[in-house]
């Protein structure tokens, strides 16, 4: 609002200004040589000073700053690159170690398995041998028992028969005749009873 008012004021003031319609005078001031020497003198002085100060003091500093920044950035890039390479190397090392230890553990596992299997086999063999021996012993015993069994049975049969006969008849009968009969029967039907 204030701005608008200000503008209006300026415009009104300028509107009534008589100088607006003042007549032209003199054409181009640039072609008036009155101050040419002054301008040349001051231009030389000022531009010369500007050139000397810029070229001797300021521009080398800016150039050095730029160079420094450039080299610093380059250094940083190189350092980053080196670190990346380092980390890659480390990663490779790490991978190597991992694969090596994996192999080692595998070998170790295999070794242990083989060893255990060996001991197990040895123990099993031993046990099997023992068992075999036991079985053989038992079989021998059984064989012996079986071999001695008919005689004993015959004896028992003779004794039992004589006992039964004694009870039935009341007289003692000669054991030898009974045994003859038993032997005879054994010979006839032995294979029926003790079939091998």
């Amino acid at each position, binding site marked *: 609002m204030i701005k608008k008012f200000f503008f209006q004021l300026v415009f009104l003031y300028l509107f009534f200004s008589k100088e607006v319609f003042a007549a032209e005078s003199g054409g181009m*001031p640039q072609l008036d040589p009155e*101050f040419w*020497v002054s301008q040349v003198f*001051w231009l030389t002085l000022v*531009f010369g000073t500007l050139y000397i100060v810029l070229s001797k003091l300021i521009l080398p500093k800016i150039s050095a700053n730029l160079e420094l920044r450039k080299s610093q950035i380059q250094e940083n890039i190189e350092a980053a690159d080196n670190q990346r390479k380092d980390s890659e190397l480390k990663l490779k090392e790490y991978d190597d170690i991992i694969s090596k230890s994996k192999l080692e553990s595998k070998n170790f596992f295999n070794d242990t398995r083989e060893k255990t299997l060996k001991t197990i086999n040895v123990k099993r063999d031993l046990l099997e041998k023992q068992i075999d021996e036991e079985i053989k012993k038992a079989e021998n015993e059984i064989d012996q028992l079986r071999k001695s069994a008919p005689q004993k049975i015959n004896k028992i049969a003779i004794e039992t028969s004589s006992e039964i006969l004694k009870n039935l008849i009341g007289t003692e009968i000669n054991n030898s005749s009974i045994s003859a009969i038993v032997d005879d029967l054994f010979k006839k039907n032995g294979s029926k009873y003790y079939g091998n």
Partner: protein
Amino acid sequence: MAANPMTQFEVYRIGPEIKIGAFDISFTNASLFMVVSSLAILLIFNLGSKKNSMLPNKIQLLAELSYTFVSKMISDTAGSKAKPYFAFIFSLFMFVLFCNMFGMIPYTFTVTSHIIVTFVLAAFIFIGVTIIGFIKHGFGYLKLFVPSGVPIVLLPLIVVIEIISYLSRPISLSVRLFANMMAGHTMMKVFGGFVISLGIVGGWLPLTFSVALTGLEILVAFLQAYVFAILTCIYLNDALNLHH
């Protein structure tokens, strides 16, 4: 408030009259704005180069961007041989740019809108480039006026044209800058005058133009400084790398 659009270009004495012999070298408003522009350049670039931080602040960034901008401009147009002239072209570009830009502030004086100023700069460049050319190539520098691959019949004509174009370099260089600055400021003044004469009723249209022209003039101020510097680079390139 002056109505004549040329009044803004008038030079007047500030302070006492100084004379050396027959020459009047009084301090004028033109001298004042030369000094102001130079001081502004020195201030900005001094602040911009004072401390070097890894992450530049705004003013340091400004200084360094200007440095790389001019440096790239020189190496693109004149090659690596022009390195020793970097400081001069940088000062020239900055001086013209700041004088142009200070001229855009109302009620200031535009140093570069005076033919004598631009002509002195252009003449210095012309003489300097010619001397550099003769130092680097001896009389071989005259080959500049004899382009290769031109039929012998046309050669006399071409040489004359080349010599004229070479000699007119300081004039074209100085008049280009001076005329651009003067025309722009005159036009702005004229449109400003229209705003006043048409008043609050019809003054809005020229005012709009005036605002637009201000933007355009700022562009021109930069562009002319750039053109002045790049033409200097091109002339320098001719002197350093004789291609013709």
